């Protein structure tokens, strides 16, 4: 018997699924008592190089409201050529093409190892990918130049048949026509005027073909001529566009002293969305927005153009002092929804030292599956490489991105789906498996994920609806099927089906089993997502309290202790790390806004709710490696006690990569020992973390901020703010330890936290 650990990893590797519980309590009541809901992290497009897609279409259950896909869990009568749906128990005949089916000649989807299988849909037209650059020209010359180069470079990364378009904006919004020869032509919109999609299309001269276009179907070929003026195949306009980008001038309108440049981001996006809406609805497209500052005019403005009014801070927001916040948010939300409906995703690349309004605009990416990248300048490797990585390719030479995903969840009747948390929008598909109890984006069994990449991970939350008095038959299994339809980056339509099943367990009799099936990592991430999701709409302290209570309840449920005796408290191995995750989560920027601007918070949260489990965990609890002369690099506790003078530390918080040289190391380095032949070893030691960091940098998206610092350096704060403040200026002497570095903070340390937790968990009054 394999351990749960292995089981979990196997499942994750095959299906991209991590459940909080791998045994499901068989009744609603028991499930509720488990505190952590039955839920999972699902990575729909997990890379499966070993899984070749099949070239036919899935067989669906014929029941109208079921439509589940034939899967290995279905019972099949090979003689009658009939299969029974394991979700609705409908008996379906196989289609004629399955005539030759037999026990020895089974289609792939019936084989157990194909619990995840991918179909290629041959029907329907294929549409090329579309990349629409929306570029802010209110940039410093240097920034603009760097951005232009990046954009030009990106052209070479696009598939030749991909359509590209360019919109630039500043005070005005320009939609560049790419087809014309000679004179560069562009359509200009005023940056202050909110235009309806129809108006935009009229003004761009796109209305005539639209009349004949059918709703909901790609119009690509027939009206290509019209849309082509703005969206052209890369291979055709490569040169043209390169020149155009090369000649891009920064916004020609003078910026008076004491003013911000007028930036019409809102209208520019509106035009971009309108343009795609009119030309390529329901076709995979990315709107890539590059901004160097906040929107300062027109709809969606985040801050006025007076420099003397600073952009909103958390303080302003709490005081309800952010004038434009609500209006702008509403504006961008509406736009994000429109865009999502049409299957277009919006990326935001914001590079500025100050905030750029991500707080208001985050929904653009969050709802459409787009990326958000935040940097200080377009002239940094952070941006350049991140941007390059957007176009990274897999082993087959295909982009690691997919478009227009529709993810449907089907459950067996004991389960209902409460909601999803991730870069998706609800498609409002009510069905029998939809719970009334919403968690995350609920009330539906279908979600649209406009852009998916292999690491895109959604959290799904379920509810056991089986009543306590109607036990599940022994050996019964609950099943969940994820059906993901999407447009592959090679323009194929594909359907990936993942069907998973877990055993039911009676929580009363099998609580031990259930406890051991707990996946504390997944649970921590799933709970964290719930917390972050709540934090978007609730006050920070409330969320923390809620999280604390959940933790306490969990500890009460599974801890072993004597009442009112904190010292007797023990947690089993499967839960042992969970409180620690929660401790770090509480301190994380996802829930703490202190020291973060609203934009940063939005940025962190954005990434948190879409990364896979490993990355999410890193975000919650950064990894700390220690390099020393005394042995190979080793992971060490994220604790102030790990900060030693003769160590080099490498911390990965996902967003930052910090290399920290201890005091002694730093002195040596300053003294230049590494350049001396006799201190070759020291040189190697210095090099080691750099190499490791490089490795991480190579694979991470977005590129983390890379920080090389040393003891006492200002940048060391990144490290100091993350480690557990086991030593602070308050207890430095009390502890009397000789190692580690005190952290100047009033935050509680893990130790204190655990003590409190134990106390509360064992308290009879709780």
């Amino acid at each position, binding site marked *: 018997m394999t351990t749960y650990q292995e089981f979990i990893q196997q499942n994750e590797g095959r299906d991209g699924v991590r459940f909080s519980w791998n045994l499901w309590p068989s009744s609603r009541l028991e499930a509720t008592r488990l505190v952590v809901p039955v839920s999972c992290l699902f990575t729909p497009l997990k890379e499966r190089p070993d899984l070749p897609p099949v070239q036919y279409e899935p067989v669906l259950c014929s029941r109208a409201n079921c439509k589940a896909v034939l899967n290995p869990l279905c019972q099949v009568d090979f003689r009658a050529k009939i299969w029974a749906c394991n979700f609705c128990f409908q008996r379906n005949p196989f289609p004629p093409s399955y005539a030759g089916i037999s026990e020895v000649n089974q289609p792939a989807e019936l084989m157990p190892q194909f619990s995840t299988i991918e179909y290629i849909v041959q029907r329907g037209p294929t549409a090329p990918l579309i990349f629409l650059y929306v570029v802010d020209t209110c940039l410093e010359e240097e920034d603009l130049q760097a951005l232009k180069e990046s954009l030009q470079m990106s052209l070479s990364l696009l598939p030749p048949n991909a359509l590209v378009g360019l919109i630039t904006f500043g005070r*005005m919004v*320009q939609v560049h*026509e790419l087809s*014309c020869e*000679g*004179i*560069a*032509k*562009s*359509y*200009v*919109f*005023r940056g202050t*005027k909110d*235009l309806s999609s129809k108006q935009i299309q*009229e*003004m*761009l*001269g796109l209305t005539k073909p639209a009349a004949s276009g059918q709703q909901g179907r790609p119009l690509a070929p027939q009206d290509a001529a019209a849309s082509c003026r703005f969206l052209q195949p890369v291979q055709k306009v490569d040169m043209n566009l390169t*020149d155009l980008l090369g*000649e891009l*001038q920064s916004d*020609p*309108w*003078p910026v008076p002293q004491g003013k911000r440049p007028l930036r019409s981001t809102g209208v520019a996006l509106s035009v971009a969305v309108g343009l795609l809406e009119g030309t390529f609805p329901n076709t995979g497209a990315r709107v890539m927005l590059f901004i160097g500052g906040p929107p300062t005019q027109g709809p969606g403005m985040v801050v006025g153009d007076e420099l003397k009014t600073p952009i909103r801070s958390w303080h302003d927001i709490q005081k309800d002092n952010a004038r434009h916040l609500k209006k702008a948010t509403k504006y961008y939300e509406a736009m994000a929804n429109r865009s999502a409906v049409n299957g277009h995703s919006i990326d935001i690349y914001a590079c500025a030292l100050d905030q750029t309004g991500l707080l208001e605009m985050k929904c653009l990416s969050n709802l459409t599956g787009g990326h958000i990248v935040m940097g200080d300048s377009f002239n940094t490797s952070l941006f350049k490489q991140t941007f390059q990585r957007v176009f990274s390719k897999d082993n087959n030479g295909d982009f690691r991105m997919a478009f227009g995903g529709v993810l449907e969840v089907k459950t067996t009747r004991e389960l209902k789906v409460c909601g999803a948390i991730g870069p998706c929008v609800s498609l409002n598909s009510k069905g029998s498996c939809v719970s009334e109890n919403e968690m995350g984006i609920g009330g539906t069994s279908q979600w649209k994920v406009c852009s998916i990449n292999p690491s895109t991970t959604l959290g799904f939350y379920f509810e056991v609806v089986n009543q306590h008095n109607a036990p599940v038959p022994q050996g019964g299994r609950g099943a969940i099927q994820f059906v993901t339809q999407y447009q592959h980056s090679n323009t194929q339509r594909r359907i990936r089906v993942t069907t998973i099943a877990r055993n039911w367990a009676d929580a009363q009799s099998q609580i031990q089993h259930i406890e051991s099936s707990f996946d504390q990592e997944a649970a921590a991430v799933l709970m964290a997502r719930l917390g972050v999701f709540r934090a978007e709409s609730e006050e920070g302290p409330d969320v923390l309290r809620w999280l604390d209570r959940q933790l306490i309840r969990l500890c009460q449920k599974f801890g072993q202790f004597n009442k009112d005796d904190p010292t007797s408290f023990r947690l089993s191995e499967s839960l042992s790390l969970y409180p620690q995750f929660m401790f770090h989560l509480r301190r994380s920027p996802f829930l703490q806004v202190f020291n973060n601007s609203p934009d940063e918070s939005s940025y962190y949260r954005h990434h948190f709710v879409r990364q896979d489990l490993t990355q999410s965990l890193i975000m919650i609890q950064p990894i700390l490696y220690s390099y020393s002369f005394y042995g190979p690099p080793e992971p060490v506790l994220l604790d102030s006690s790990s900060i030693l003078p003769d160590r080099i530390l490498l911390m990965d918080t996902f967003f930052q990569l910090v290399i920290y040289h201890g005091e002694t190391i730093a002195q040596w380095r300053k003294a230049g020992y590494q350049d001396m032949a006799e201190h070759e070893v020291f040189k190697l030691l210095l090099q080691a973390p750099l190499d490791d960091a490089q490795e991480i940098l190579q694979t991470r998206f977005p590129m983390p901020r890379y920080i090389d610092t040393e003891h006492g350096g200002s940048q060391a704060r990144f490290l100091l703010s993350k480690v557990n403040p086991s030593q602070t200026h308050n207890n430095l002497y009390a502890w009397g330890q000789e190692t580690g570095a005190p952290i100047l903070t009033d935050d509680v340390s893990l130790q204190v936290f655990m003590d409190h937790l134990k106390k509360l968990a064992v308290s009879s009054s709780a």
Partner: protein
Amino acid sequence: MNVNQHTPMASPYGQPQPGYTQPGYAPLDGGYPAPYAPYNGPASPYQPGAPPQGYSPFTSFPSKAVAANPVSDLSSPLDLGISGPARGPPTTGPPPISAPQQYNQYSHSQGDMQNGPPPMTQAQPRPPVSQPYNPGAMNMSGPHPTYPQHYGPPPTMQQVSNQMSGMQITSGPPTPAGPGYAPPHSSQPPVSTAYSAAPPPSYTQAPPPVSSAPTQPPPSGPAASQQYYGSPPPPSQQPFNSSLPPTSQQQFTSSSVPPPPSQQTLPPSSYSGPAPPAGQPPAPPVSQPQQSFPPSQPPFSSAPPPTSQPAFAPGPPPTAPGSFPPRAPPPSSQPGSYPPPTSAPSCQYPGPLPPQQQPPPSQPFPYHSGPPPPRAQMPPTSMAQSNHLPPGPQGPPGPPGPLQQPPSQPGMQTGYPPQQNGAFGQVRGPQPGYAGPYPGQPNYGAPAPAPAPAPPAQKRLDPDAIPSPIQVIEDDKAKSTEPFTTGVRGQAPPLVTTNFQVKDQGNASPRFVRCTAYNMPCTADMAKQSQVPLAAVVKPLATLPPDETPPYLVDHGEGGPIRCNRCKAYMCPYMQFIEGGRRFQCGFCSCVTEVPPHYFQHLDHTGKRVDCYDRPELSLGSYEFLATVDYCKNNKLPQPPAFIFLIDVSYNAVKSGMVSIVCQELKTLMDYLPRENPEMDSIVRVGFVTYNKVLHFYNVKSSLAQPQMLVVSDVSDMFVPLLDGFLVNVNESRLVIESLLDQIPEMFADTRETETVFGPVIQAGLEALKAADCAGKLFVFHTSLPIAEAPGKLKNREDKKLIGTDKEKSLFQPQVGFYNTLAKECVAQGCCVDLFLFPNQYVDVATLGVVPVSTGGSVYKYTYFQAQSDQERFLNDLRRDVQKPVGFDAVMRVRTSTGIRATDFFGSFFMSNTTDVELAGLDCDKAITVEFKHDDKLSEETGALMQCAVLYTSCSGQRRLRIHNMAVNCCSQLADLYRNCETDTIINFFSKYAFRGVLNNPTKAVRDTLVNQCAQILACYRKNCASPSSAGQLILPECMKLLPVYLNCVLKSDVLLPGADVSLDDRAYLRQLISCMDVTETHVFFYPRLLPLMKLESGSLPVAVRDSEERLSKGGVYLLETGLHLFLWVGASVQQELLLNIFGTPSFGQIDSSMTSLPVLDNPFSQRLREIIDSFRAQRSRYMKLMVVKQEDRAELIFRHFLVEDKSVSGGASYVDFLCHMHKEIRQLLS
């Protein structure tokens, strides 16, 4: 030079006038001296006239012929006198000389030189000069101090011509030939009488007289005239005749010799007539006192005239034996006409005396011819002194004049006026009455000689017997031989058809300002009674001929121009410095203002500032101030202006070839943007926009390799998409601009877009200028009715059924209010719009033109534009439009003396209040007509002053004020008013008034109003100024004798009386076009110039013929010009040789009537013809496309439309009919 001059000025003599001229100029510009000097001479003479005081002294001096010299001497005496021209100052002698020069007119310099010495003995010099002419001039000048210049010479001419016309005799009229003229003279006397007769009856009667005339003349002018004119008037006529005859005869004789001279000579002759009696001595004095020495001299010569007379006499007789003699009478008529002018002057000055003395003399004189008038004047002007007086009386008396006129005079104090008016006997009367006045001579001449013509006349009014514009024009030309100096108040300038040079001596040049009346009635009652409109046509930025200096730029430093504290009038010659120069009193409001310390200057003993002639603002009529920041918008010095070209690229525009032509041409035009210093690059920035349903802006920043197009489809809410890169400096962005202009036609070659917008196009330009914070001009090239969905969208509302109804006016009004609002915004920004239209159908010019018209822009229309045939015209218009000097963001304000007020303005501009005329753009071709009304009394002493100040931004971005000052006389006698009117200006006013009237009134009502007012004017004259005569006699004031014919032209214009084939657009177009025309343009527009081309001489143009089909000979070729159209009419039986010369083809049938330019042939005739055509085109602000019209071709219909003396197809009356109608109206008013 300057110094010398100054000193002279200072000199006690200091006759202000002389001083002015010389000093003023001298300081200003060394260059002047030469020209001035001569002028000075004249000026001095004139001056006397102007300022009473001055005059008297002068007169006395001048009277001595020598006086002139002295004057000049005083100023800058000695000088090189003559050379005066060169260095006027030195030659004091010159002054005199100069005088001569003036007179010389024909040969200024020569005369001057010679004169110089002679000055001493004026007589001598003069003779040498051009005896005949001079005399004429003399007379003329003599009569009217003011007039002198213009009239002076002209008078003679006029008189002659009038006489001629009166003569009936000379059919020749068409041919300017001397002989022809002669006859006219004779006719003159008759004229008045003839007219007098009732129209119809008169006609009948008239003929007979005519026939008889010839015979009669010889015997006794008077008698003849009487007969002709109808006995009724006879009495008056007779007198005239009698008086006239003698003079006229003489004249004729002289004239006979050289055609042109002949005319002039005539006058002289007249002088001679008088002179003899007066005695030579007297005569000279007369002349002297009067303006022109030269004239005077000639007169002297003429004085000798006695001798000359004889000489002449002989001459004439020979030429036109019998007939001529009769003409003699005409001269009398002339005198009559002229005299009036003279009398007028006289009135002003010595009012009392002159009248008395003069009356008699003047009367005679008038009739006689120029001579008398001069005398008349002389007397008035202090001249009265013995010398003058004598001459006056003598001259006049001698001739019958006294006899005839006396009566008239009695009636009027200035009996002259009536005469002048030359009451034209109607019909026949014309001959008599007009005779004098009307140039008709030629025409008449014809009839006269051949009795035959006369008979026809009986049946209907003989066209030759009525006042002829051609004659008047020619007379004026002959008269205006010397530069016109503006120093004399109330002096009417030569006609617009006359080439003359102007010397600014304190009043604005007539090229800048022309008035309807140079002698305004003192009271509102008089003004109301006369109904003569009091208006000035101001063309603030008019281009001056190369020999005249543009206004000087004066900088008063940081404080800005010195102004009156109360009325804010700018420093000008009318400001009177007092208290030793510490303060000045405003000539307009009389308020006393402190002189700022930096501007202080001591006064000389005459109360003038010592630096008077160093400062243009104290000595000139027109000059400019440099404005300070206080005069700028937002208190910021203006940015350099910008030109934005907005080109329609819809299907029609591309297909017609317009787009490619414009683009091609703009490439070269970029180098010719307006600039002030020809050696510098223009700082005007340019921008480009194309449009159809949407707008395309272009980024032509110099750093770009290729231009960029920015499409703005949001036409409902226009904005400008870029700033940097849109308006660029041509030199920096030349390559990009050229690339753009190359590509525009290609880009839209395949366009299918037919809809256009218009409102947003202007908004776009406006926004661009706003964004750039500068003023500028938009050039919009547009093809079609803007029906695309956008602000300012229009519907096709052309509905011919409305024409003639009460709703017709709505067709002239803009369809939507949008453009009015837009225009307002444009004006606020200083955004001037020039619109080039290329319509293939109705485009609603009435609406589209609102913005151009309100912003001081122009509308050009090329209906059915075709690249091949219309390209040249369009391109020339475009070139001129782009290159012409223009000011931006202008505000014009007219200040006047207390007593009158500028109440109404006509032209292309916008007014947001009642006083400020706001012009977003003001170019050199735009004129503004200002109407004045009394709000109090004016005084004869101070006259009426007006100051027109235009604040504008020059094309070099400098903020300036251009000031034009004008002073006119005031009169308490209606006769003076009538004697100092300018019909061309009145017509300009009437047309603008009427064309604006159609916006609010039915055209019929507008026409009736015009006729009515005109009738009242003439009736008032008849009632108050003319000598008593039969009610049936039509008597017209000399100055207004062409009023009926011109007015008829206005009434028949397409705007007021459209033919069936005239589109609404055309009417609206013309209506707008007229609104900003100056007098020259309206004149030729309403009365086209028709030149016979059978014989061409280099150096001079053939004398025009009247615009009537009867004047066209089948065997001839004619050139007709209206300022907008140019026709070459080819008679059906024209000589082969002529065809070969012109077209290079021997056959009439082979002439290609679609040609728009004549073949370049290597023969003198062809060369000359093309030269003429080119010179015509150069004179007009719009290029005229040449249309070749073959007789009896279909195109002839169009051509005939411009023969304005004929009945028009649309129902317009012929000249003759209209005159009868007018007479009827007048009689009704009188009864």
